[in-house]
Each structure stands twice: as structure tokens, then as C-alpha cells.
């Protein structure tokens, strides 16, 4: 009884925090369809960088959407960027939308707990707690794998300006290390004033003006 009280209290606190965060968040709202349509508009306007950025954002909300994947591949091809197909593993773990997957993980934890406790009390029918533990574990693993697949996207950014120069130092007069094409996706490693240290897909690192990048997670 006491445990239930603690659980309810904690859930209430978390809900309150979430509500407070939402109230202080900017009024900008995102939907997968809205981002997808916006990306289409940019693609039609020839803005490959902004199109890729919004397709990537839409894919975060609807990972398995075939339209998003198809149009993103077309824009990449038009921008002469190498394709970035998801592997089979990624496709499987991204079959469930992240919002549902998160709650499925919570449910998985609950099922595991119920199974463990039931195995001690229900000594006669052991298959029921075992099934609960198995199902709960599967849900938790699915959620964790999806989080691992999506974790790089939390630090991803898209190059918005063609021939963006990656410099060896975070200064406008720094020497150019290499040049990035518009629409290329990079990983943000660090930030310093108006520059961001990025790592390209081929492993090269350099400092890029932040104004030339669009973070997938704004």
C-alpha cells in the first residue's frame, strides 16, 4: 500500500514537471505531417539543406513513414549526397513510434516486476509470471534499442548553406579544413561562441559557423 502511494506521488510529480516544462516551452509545435509538408515545400524550392533538415525532424516523430524516407532519399540524390538507408535492425526498432515505444518500455518494466513478484507468490502456475517477464523484457529491449538508434539524431545537424567551410579553429579567419555540401548531415561535438565543432560522416572534424547549420533537435 505504501509502495503504491510512493508510485502515485512520483507519477504526480513527473506529470507536474512535464506540464510546467510544456508551459514554459516555446509556442512552436511540431507534427510529422507538418514537417513533412514543409520539407516538401523546401525541396520544390531547391533548398536541399532545409528540406533534409525538416525530413529528418519529421522522421523523428514518424520513423517508419515511407513517404518521408522516399522523399528524403530523393532530395539527397538531387543534392549529390550519398544515400543514408536504415539497416534492417533500425527498421525493426523504429517500427513503433518513439512516443508509443517510451510507454511500452514503462509497461515492460511493470510486466517484469509483476512477473518477478508473481513467481514468488504463485508457486503453482509458473508459466504466467514467466510470460510476463518475457514480454516485459522484450518491450524494454525494444525501447532501449530504439533509443540507441535515435541517440545520434539528438546531436545531428544539417548543413544549410552550400560549400560551407569547416575550419581548423573556431574563428572566421581560421584556415579551411574541408568543405561541406548543402544537405549533408553532421554530428555536433562541441560549441564555442558562433561556431560548432562537427564530425562529418567520413570522420573528419572541423569548426563550422552555427548559422550555416540546422540542428535536427532545435
Amino acid at each position, binding site marked *: 500500500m505504501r*509502495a503504491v502511494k*510512493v508510485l502515485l506521488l512520483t507519477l504526480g*510529480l*513527473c506529470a507536474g*514537471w*512535464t506540464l510546467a516544462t*510544456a508551459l514554459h*516551452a516555446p509556442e512552436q*509545435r*511540431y*507534427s510529422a*505531417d*507538418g514537417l*513533412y*509538408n*514543409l520539407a*516538401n*515545400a*523546401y*525541396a*520544390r*524550392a*531547391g*533548398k536541399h539543406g*532545409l528540406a533534409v*533538415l525538416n525530413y529528418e525532424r519529421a522522421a*523523428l*516523430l514518424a520513423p517508419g513513414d515511407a*513517404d518521408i524516407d*522516399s*522523399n528524403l532519399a*530523393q*532530395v539527397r540524390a*538531387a543534392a549529390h549526397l550519398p544515400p543514408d538507408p536504415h539497416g534492417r535492425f533500425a527498421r525493426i526498432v523504429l517500427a513503433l513510434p*518513439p*512516443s508509443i515505444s*517510451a*510507454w511500452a*518500455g*514503462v509497461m515492460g*518494466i*511493470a510486466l*517484469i*516486476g*509483476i512477473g*518477478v513478484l508473481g513467481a514468488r*507468490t504463485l508457486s503453482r502456475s509458473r508459466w504466467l509470471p514467466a510470460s510476463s517477464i518475457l514480454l516485459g523484457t522484450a518491450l524494454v529491449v525494444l*525501447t532501449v534499442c*530504439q533509443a540507441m538508434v535515435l541517440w545520434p539524431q539528438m546531436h545531428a545537424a544539417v548543413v*544549410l548553406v552550400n560549400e560551407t567551410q569547416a575550419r581548423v579553429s573556431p574563428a*572566421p*579567419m581560421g584556415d579551411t579544413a574541408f568543405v561541406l555540401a548543402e544537405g549533408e548531415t553532421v554530428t555536433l561535438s562541441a560549441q564555442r561562441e558562433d561556431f560548432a565543432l562537427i564530425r562529418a560522416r567520413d570522420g573528419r572534424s572541423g569548426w563550422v*559557423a*552555427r*548559422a*550555416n*547549420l*540546422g540542428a535536427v*533537435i*532545435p
Partner: protein
Amino acid sequence: MRIRLWQWSRAVIGAGALLVPITHAKALANPALAYETVEPARIKLGETATIRVTSLDGYLDDIQLPKVAGLTFEIVGRAQGLEFINGQASPAWYILIRVTPQALGLFSIPGLTAKSPALGLEVVAENTPSSFSWQVQKSAPPAPAPHSSASIPKGARLKADAAAFVQLSIPTRPVYVGENVPMDIEVGVRPGVVTSMNGLPALNSSDFTLTLSKQPLRRDQNIDGNPFLVMTWHSALTVVKPGNFSLSVETPLSVRVDTRSADDQAFGSILGWPFSQIPSKGVPPKNITVASSPSELKVLSLPAAGRPRDFGGAVGEFQASSEVSSTRVAAGDPLTLKLHISGIGNFDRVESSMFDHLDHWKTYPPKSSVTRTDPGGTRGEKVFEQPLIAVSSGEQSIPPLEFSYFNPTTRRYERVRTQPIQVMVSTSLADSSLRAPSEGRAPEQGSARQLARGLRPDHSAAAGSVRDLRPLYFRLPFLGIPATLTLVLAGLAVRSRRARPTVKTAERALAQMSAAAHSGNSSLFLETARAAVLQALAHRWRLPPEQIGSTELRARLGKTGAEIDRLFALADEARYAAGESQDTDYSYWLALVRGELVRGAS
């Protein structure tokens, strides 16, 4: 043999003794000597020529500068040196006059001293090829006075010995502290006699900093039949404190010193070359220092009156201009502002403080570079490259940059100012990433149209939207839910694990009671039942087993407590009636005890 040689020597010496008065008398017949030369005789507009007035018979008083339309004259220095005549050094005094043309043409400069002829100077346009050469009709300078050993100061012969001279040319006007003063150092050495130069010319005072040109200008000059190598350093002199100074330049040399007696030298000079040189060939080199004649220099402090607040110590004449790398940028994109400061002066004191007032622009430390355009290093250009990032969008203005300096010519502080520059700053692409692109911004319409045909169609607008793109499991508030759930479940599991030994003890006690009932051992049955129930109740009520009595049982458990109390009484009776069999309802007591034990375990 020795007697014959002696007779021949006496004859030669006697003939020489007759010739010496003759040559001396010829020299005495010449009037006082002064002459002038102009070099170069053909210059381009923008260049300068130098008139050198040489006096061989004493210090030159101030001379009247000529007045020629299209030419300006300025005395840039006085010097004292040696003129080499017949292999002998004679003291000479010089006045150097800088001639600056203002127009093209062929000019005739009247003689500056008595009986000196006019000089010719041709000024041509800058793009005139240099293949054509106009030779100025210079009349040969009057023959210099013959050498008189009596007029040479003591020690001068050892230094010079017709071997080397050093000459310093500095302006005669007062200069200011910090000013870069152009200065010419001329060192002439006689190859063969001077074996090596052991260092660069250096000033004899530490109150100045001297910047020599990297390589001197070299020319071969024939001075009275003897070949000389003349090296000229166009240098810059910086004065660090005010006062009156006497400047001299010293140059370390290695020379072969002529150790012959005066008679032998006179005899050798009568015979002329090569006899005048032979005796010194075998002498080892000796290190000497040749110094120029001291020149007076007056250094003034910079005036305090009218000194601008932003004055940084620049002295000279400067011009300023600025430019930007692009007049159209996106907000956040860097652009480079270049500031050019050109002119004459001490560029090391031209600092970047003028960039301190660039409001509305984010600045980074500027880079600067200096390009010298003359060998002396006084004329040149300093370029500052200032990276700028616009803080706000729209039409922005880079304000005029101001720079103040002291002009030694006008003797007052002056200020140069660049023109303001307008820059159009557009909104950053990143900021507009969530806005629909405008109709007019489609630079790649062709390929975009082709791409648009292959795109899948838009989705119908859905109602669901989120405020945060991050999945729930990457948000801290949400992570509290699975964390709390995990903690609660783990607590329950731990509690269950702690209860497990109680259940096992109860099962063991029930098994012992069942075995005692089978064997009909009522004493063992009742004793085991009492011990198990006491332990279970003590664990449940967190009391020591000895404190659980009849009152406690009846108060806490009611009717069940009374039955348990009766079980305890039966157990006591069985203990005191050791070995006697009692009529015990095993199944009833077994059910009662099991019920209590299971209740306690749960």
C-alpha cells in the same frame, strides 16, 4: 752590388725630391675647391635626386638653395668624410640636398658654389622606359687639391689610409620623438686593402633604434684612380627621447695597414701604382673601426597641446581607406573589414584601437600586416583585417574608422577618417528553417522542378502535434516514471525476499507437527505448534516472544487469540504430564496454526 743599389736609390730619391716641390707648387696654384654633383641625373616623377656639394678646403657655410620652377630643394644633411685623391685621404665636407620634382621636363639647376657650373636634371613620366638615357653634361669637377699630410688629423691616416670611409646623412631639421627619420649610411671600402667587413654599421648611441635595409645598394666607384666598393644603406632612425644628440656611425673593418715610413710612402706615391701598393701586401690584416663624422640631431617632444584622446603615438603622414569582403551577408555569417593605412611613418604605432567602436557588430581580434615600399622602411602600408559578424539583420552600417597621428611636417596632430560602408544583412537561414520559403527564393528552379515531380505528395494536416521533437525517453521528466516504477518494484522484490525465510520456517514447523500427529506424540505436536505460532506472532508484532501472553493474544486476535491461548495451555499441560498421552484434535490445531503462519508470511 749593395753599393750600386744604394747609389741608384740616392739618385731616385734625389729626383723625387726635385719633383715634390713642383707638384706641391701646382697644388698651391689651385683656388679653393668646392663642386657639386646630382645623382641620378634622370629620374621619374615621384622620385627624388640628391645634390651633393663637396668642399675640400674647409667647412661649408650655409648655402643659398636655388629656386627652380618645378623643383623643390631641401637640405637633408651635412656630413664630413674623406675624399681619396691619388690614394691619399683628404678631409671633405658635404652638404646633401634632396631635389623633388613637381613636373616633367628638363631642368637646369644653377651652381650652388662659386664658379661651379649648372647641373642638369631630367624628370620623366613614371611609365617612361628606362632604355633611353640622357646624360647630364657635367663638367668635370675641378681637380682636388693635392694631398697635404699636415691637414689630416692624427689617426685618420691609420683608419682610412685610402682604404675606407663612412658617411652619415640625416635631416638637418628638428625631429620628433617616435618619428621614423630617413637616414642614409654610406660605407666605401677599397678592395684589396680592406679585407673584410666585420659587422653592419651601428650607431654610437643607445637612444636611437636603427632599422637598416636588408641589403645595401652596391656600386663600384673609381675615386682618383682607385677602385672603391661603395655600399649605401637607406635606413630609418627612431628616436626614443627628446634632446640634442651627436650621431655617428661606426663600421668594423679588417684592413691591411701600411706600416711603411712616411718617406717610403711618399716615394711609393711618386712612383704610382703598383709601387704604392706593393709594400702592404705582405702585412697581416688588422681590425679597425671606421666612424663617420658626428652629426647633430635635435629631437623634440610631441606637443601636449591638441593631442587627441585616441592618439597612439603614430608620427608621420598617413592616409586611410577601408573595404569589406561582401556587402550582402546572412545574419551570423562573417565578413572581413580591411583597413588600409598607408603613408610615411612609424607603422608599429598604428594600432587597431579604431575597431573598438564597432557597435552592432561582433568582432574578433584583427590581424595586421605591414608592407614596406622603400628600402629604408619608412614608407609603406599597414593592412588590418577585422572579422565582423552582424548582430542583427537588415541594412547595417559600418561606421567610419578614425585614426589620429602627429604630422612632423605641419607640426600638429591630424586625423584621417574612412567612409562608412553599408552592408545588407539578410535573415539567417537557420532561423527561417521553420518558415515557408518565399516565392522569390528559388535559385535552382530547373533542378527543383525536376525533383518536385518525383516527390511523394503532401500529407493532409493532422491534429496531433508536440512541443518537443525529442522522444519521451530522452526527456528528464518522463524518465522519472520508469525510474520510480523500477524502484518500487525492486523494493517489493526485496521485501518479498526478506519474507521468504519466515515462510520456510512455517512450512518446516507444519511438517514437524504433521509427523508428530502421525506418531501420536501430542506433547511434541503441541510444543512445536506453540513455538511456531509464537515466532510468527513475534515477527508480526515486532515483540519479543516472551512478552506475548494471554492478554496480548486476546486483545490483538480476539476469538482466534483465545484459541491460541488454549493451544499454549495444552502445550504446557503436555509438558508437565511428560510421556502421558492426551486426546488431541490434531487436524483442528494444525489448521489453526497453518492459518496463523500463512497470515504472518504474507
